[in-house]
């Protein structure tokens, strides 16, 4: 395909969509699929065909729209009306929607109330849950069909790559550096800088690797992006490849995410067919292709050197750095591992410019962040917010609080590597630095809300148990330290703990932080330490009482 053909194709698809009287898109991500989205799409399609409306109504899928607990979600775009989002749809409700709203509109009848008979299922798109979000990475979710390349093109797809093809590798690195984009996997290293290291390396082969091994329990940002906008990740990876003169791309995705794997494989096939991947991309003379590898359930593979070992088909154990992967990575060649969300930001940065991106967020944390909002919260789901928003705004305004008569006690960010943040600190703005100061971390974006009935001691134990189980066992501080710390915590949970146990926990924690080989061991004590810091009384209350005189 020639570069100009991108626009032709996009314009044709857009004209087709605009010619439609009604457009119905149903969330086709794992969450809504599990709630029966496929039955609804099938029913709508059958109804549309049966009523002879096929040329007037478009039916399709789309990426996660956020309100996963209220699925399946259907978004309706009716000519002359505002978009409407319907929640908790059923096939029968879909038929009513077609009969009472879609068919009349398509047949040219005046409709005053497109909400029609499904009023109880309408989600207010002006509510805080949506209004306070800012969607960059998730901008196509709810609009484009992730399984259609043409749909991605309508929304500016592959224009970022097109621009990148006219720039030098150094210019791309500079642009991304200027945008202030930092790694969304958790550590927050400047992406442009990371690319630039790989760029400077002289090698005949270089790899760019996408880390889609979202191992953090309670998080599904990367799954949603891979499922909802696979082409954006593909495009981001290709731009990254141009920035460091990489020759091959590797997707590493959790085997537990079959739909995400499917969507990426499909996107690669479509892009290859269109001449966007493979030889002589967009007539530029540049060639690049992808490989897809599956993870197999190992949290430690989120660490880049462990991930690389796993891509090589070995046990996923980390190795000491340096040498960093940018010097010696996959098959000993310079490699760069980027997180899914980081890569999905890239095409938008190239397309809209570094200043556009840098205008969002705080001084040091630019852009937006996708969070998976779960736990004891009214609006469970996926949100994307500008950096700098406070935790309180996310939990209370967007999330709607606990939704029960219980009070919010705190949130855990960063999963098993992060920490607990008490409600009293909720006015802290979201940024890499602020969260670290609180003893937590940005992490990949899991945000788990706990209420006043939940025990932080038990939650800390839950996370530590997870890390102990997932420790690869290669280094002693993590393997032995974690296990010993878990024993002590078990003792406290059982009511047999002493002050000395807490002192020992702190000591072991320090050893693990300093001595562990990789981030898994270094950060494993975080949940316990932050719980001790912010909720010390919950620990002391559980300690063994010398002859308790309680009535």
């Amino acid at each position, binding site marked *: 395909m020639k570069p100009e053909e991108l626009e032709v194709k996009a314009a044709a698809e857009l004209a087709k969509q605009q010619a439609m009287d009604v457009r119905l898109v149903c969330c086709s991500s794992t969450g809504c699929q*599990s709630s029966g989205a496929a039955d609804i799409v099938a029913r709508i399609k059958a109804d549309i065909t049966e009523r002879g409306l096929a040329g007037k109504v478009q039916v399709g899928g789309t990426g996660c729209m956020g309100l996963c607990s209220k699925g399946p979600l259907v978004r309706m775009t009716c000519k002359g009306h505002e978009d409407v989002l319907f929640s908790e749809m059923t096939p029968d409700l879909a038929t009513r929607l077609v009969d009472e709203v879609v068919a009349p509109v398509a047949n040219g009848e005046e409709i005053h109330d497109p909400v029609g008979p499904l009023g109880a299922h309408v989600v207010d798109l002006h509510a805080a849950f949506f209004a306070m979000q800012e969607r960059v990475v998730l901008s196509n979710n709810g609009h484009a069909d992730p399984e259609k390349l043409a749909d991605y093109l309508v929304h500016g797809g592959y224009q970022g790559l097109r621009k990148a093809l006219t720039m030098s590798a150094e210019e791309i690195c500079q642009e991304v550096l200027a945008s202030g984009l930092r790694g969304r996997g958790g550590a927050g290293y400047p992406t442009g800088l990371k690319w630039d290291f790989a760029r400077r390396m002289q090698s005949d082969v270089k790899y760019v690797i996408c880390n889609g091994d979202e191992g953090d*329990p309670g998080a599904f940002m990367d799954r949603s992006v891979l499922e909802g906008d696979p082409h954006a990740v593909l495009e981001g990876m290709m731009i990254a490849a141009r920035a460091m003169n990489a020759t091959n791309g590797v997707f590493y995705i959790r085997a*537990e995410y079959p739909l995400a794997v499917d969507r990426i494989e499909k996107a690669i096939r479509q892009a290859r067919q269109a001449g966007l991947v493979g030889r002589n991309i967009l007539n530029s003379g540049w060639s690049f292709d992808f*490989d897809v*590898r*599956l993870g*197999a*359930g*190992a949290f430690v593979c989120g660490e880049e050197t462990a991930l690389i070992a796993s891509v090589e088909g070995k046990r996923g154990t980390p190795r000491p750095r340096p040498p960093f992967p940018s010097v010696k990575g996959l098959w000993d060649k310079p490699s760069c591992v980027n997180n899914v969300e980081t890569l999905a930001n890239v095409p938008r940065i190239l397309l809209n410019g570094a200043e556009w991106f840098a205008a969002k967020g705080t001084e040091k944390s630019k852009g937006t962040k996708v969070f998976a909002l779960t736990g*004891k919260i009214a609006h469970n789901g996926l949100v994307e917010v500008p950096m700098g928003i406070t935790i309180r705004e996310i939990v209370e305004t967007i999330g709607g609080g606990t939704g029960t008569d219980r009070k919010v006690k705190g949130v855990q960010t960063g999963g098993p590597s992060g920490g607990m943040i008490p409600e009293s600190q909720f006015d802290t703005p979201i940024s890499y630095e602020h969260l670290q100061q609180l003893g937590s971390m940005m992490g990949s974006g899991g945000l788990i809300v706990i209420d006043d009935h939940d025990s932080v001691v038990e939650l800390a134990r839950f996370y530590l148990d997870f890390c102990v189980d997932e420790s690869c066992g290669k280094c002693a501080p993590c393997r032995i330290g974690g296990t010993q710390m878990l024993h002590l915590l078990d003792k406290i949970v059982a009511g047999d703990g002493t002050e000395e146990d807490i002192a020992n926990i702190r000591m072991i924690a320090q050893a693990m932080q300093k001595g562990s080989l990789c981030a898994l061991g270094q950060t494993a004590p975080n949940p316990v330490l932050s719980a001790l810091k912010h909720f010390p009384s919950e620990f002391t209350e559980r300690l063994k009482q010398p002859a308790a005189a309680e009535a």
Partner: protein
Amino acid sequence: MSEDTALDDVEVEEAPEDEIVVLAQKWKKKRGSLIMALHELQGRLGYVPRESAMKLGREMGIPLANIYEVLTFYNYFKLESPGKYIISVCTGTACHIKGSPKLLHGIENELGIKEGESTPDGEYHLQGVRCLGCCGLAPLASVNGKVYGKQDVTDAHGLLENVKRDEPMHVAAESDDAE
């Protein structure tokens, strides 16, 4: 080394011999693709039988020790037949907070087995799994890949009844039967 001498007189029962040969040929060409080959093998058989692992190793030229090194490292691979219904209770954080341990114990009591075990008749296999990524539907379980979301953690019996009837969602929205 004793493994090697035993290789030749092992009968492959679980999979037709050539199926593994084809699979091995496909992946052999790609460097470092042992994990991918094992995924495909488990995808077909439901687990990785020892005999098949031996055969695969021989075809791909990978020592059995290396194969087991990988198989035992990753949670995803199963070394024993998991049974007809594989019940995976999500033990991720969101589900944990919403009481998934209670659900897991409930199912253990109903089936009379522990997590990680199968019923003697081979009907059910129960396992706890790390996050399935459907946290919006917590607490949840998946059975043979189908998600059973928003479960009542005190009603393990009900979940098993739904499994038998193949009705994934516990909260059946109204009673409309989808065709």
